[in-house]
């Protein structure tokens, strides 16, 4: 991989909740940042730069939040940079932070994603009317539902695969104290019987609206070698994007997704992702995206993703490729942070610090985020050993 070595040495998360009414936006990001610094055994003065990400400004109506939040993030007199890539932003933000370390520009970078959905309405922000166009006014679920149906048709997947994913991720969330949804008594039948929200997506197959923030400290090799706790080395990073509408676009399996995965695995020297990756944190805001991304990323052949779900391959318990052991986006969705949570959870798995959802013997983990109309992709591979 190009550039200097880079490692994750600290992770901090807030509890994800529907409303964090006790803290302002600065107070929310501060909480995650302080936890990441504590995990990294660092103080504000140790940080060279901050890279922050959140969903588009319409989501909370704060323009240039990076300026507003600089004091809370100990960034006065230091560079602060904001990344915009819609829902994938948490992943892209981590990758921009990593690139600053890999390029030798900074040695210790704090990176953070956040969202306070309780102060906004994502459904509104995702359905803004446009001049001369019909407003569908259906939010993200309305956008993705026909694409999901196209996948179901193309792959001949059984109707309840999505419910299996949703039930699995909600079970996984019970192992993660930070997860928003802790539906202890949820049954598979309740998932199946939940109201059809955006046909074919049921209510229980969709992500919640959450407040929360997630932060990481990334450092160069010198600082990582000094860390007293295990670190997660960056083995590969890739971002790709494409327009959401052009003739011949494969919306089920976008070219940008396939190319991004090919690049990140090439950098990490991975030829057989299914066998070489030990655990996956993948951006699945609607249940069916788990089998869709399994195929697109190359964990299996096209049309086979749903079979991995059906066979339990992606379960924490008994699966050989556990996906979203944290509960995933389906259990916590502070949008601007959701991608970074995937990347941070991958780091926790590699560091052996994922608590009750720790997979045994992880040496390589995969973090993934997507955003827009499945247009932006960000991925990284982390490992226990230096690349």
């Amino acid at each position, binding site marked *: 991989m190009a550039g200097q070595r880079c490692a994750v040495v600290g992770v901090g998360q807030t509890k994800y909740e529907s409303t964090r009414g006790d*803290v*302002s936006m600065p107070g929310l990001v501060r909480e995650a940042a302080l936890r990441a610094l504590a995990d990294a055994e660092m103080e504000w003065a140790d940080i060279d730069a901050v890279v922050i990400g959140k969903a588009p400004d319409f989501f909370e*109506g704060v323009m240039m939040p990076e300026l507003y939040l600089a*004091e809370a993030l100990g960034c006065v007199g230091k560079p602060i940079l904001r990344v915009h890539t819609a829902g994938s932003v948490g992943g892209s933000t981590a990758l921009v932070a990593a690139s600053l370390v890999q390029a030798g520009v900074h040695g210790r970078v704090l990176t953070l994603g956040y969202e306070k959905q309780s102060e906004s309405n994502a459904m509104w922000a995702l359905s803004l009317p*446009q001049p001369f166009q019909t407003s569908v006014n259906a939010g993200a679920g309305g956008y993705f539902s026909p694409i999901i149906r196209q996948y179901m048709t193309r792959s001949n997947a059984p109707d309840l695969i999505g419910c299996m994913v949703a039930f699995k991720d909600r079970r996984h969330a019970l192992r993660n104290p930070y997860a928003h949804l802790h539906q202890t008594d949820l049954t598979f039948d309740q998932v199946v019987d939940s109201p059809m929200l955006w046909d074919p997506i049921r209510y229980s197959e969709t992500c919640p609206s959450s407040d929360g923030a997630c932060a990481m400290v990334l450092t160069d090799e010198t600082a990582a070698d000094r860390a007293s706790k295990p670190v997660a080395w960056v083995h590969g990073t890739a971002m790709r994007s494409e327009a959401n509408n052009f003739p011949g676009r494969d919306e089920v399996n976008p070219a940008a997704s396939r190319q991004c995965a090919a690049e990140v695995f090439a950098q990490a020297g991975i030829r057989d992702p299914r066998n070489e990756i030990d655990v996956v944190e993948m951006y699945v805001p609607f249940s069916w995206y788990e089998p869709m991304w399994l195929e697109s990323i190359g964990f299996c052949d096209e049309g086979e993703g749903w079979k991995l779900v059906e066979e339990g391959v992606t379960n924490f318990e008994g699966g050989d490729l556990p996906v979203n052991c944290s509960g995933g986006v389906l259990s916590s969705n502070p949008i601007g942070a959701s991608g970074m949570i995937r990347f941070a959870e991958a780091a926790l798995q590699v560091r052996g610090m994922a608590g009750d959802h720790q997979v045994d013997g992880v040496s390589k983990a995969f973090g993934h985020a997507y955003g827009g109309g499945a247009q932006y992709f960000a991925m990284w591979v982390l490992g226990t050993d230096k690349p």
Partner: protein
Amino acid sequence: MTEGELWAPLTLEYPFTRTTGPVIGAFLTGLREGVLCGIRRPDGSVLVPPVEYDPETAEPLAEMVPVADTGEVVTWTWTSEARDHQPWDRPFAWAMVKLDGADTPLLHAVLVDDPSQMRTGMRVRARWRDEREGHVRDIEGFVPEPPS
């Protein structure tokens, strides 16, 4: 608009909410009670309006202190035609007002009829509204002290 140009109305509106947190929340509560508050930094200086984190050290700040509703105009600019949503519907001055007991100035309006009544260093006093809701506009504006 040039002839033949396409034109369509586009109005985007959403009533966003804000969680104020412990510091800004206390400042706004003070306004509702008719009391202006700042926050003390470790070096003893007082920031008005208050902030949650120290602008230099990033340490959390928590010591809210009341300041006077009188102060001094640090600098100002004249608004000869008031626009919608501005504090007054007549000509007025935007001013940075350093309240007695504060080390940083607050932006507000000075309500005088003519720019000849304004000068840097002049003394002003807050004119409170009778009905207050916890908003910076609970202060209608500042007026010269003693009244000119």
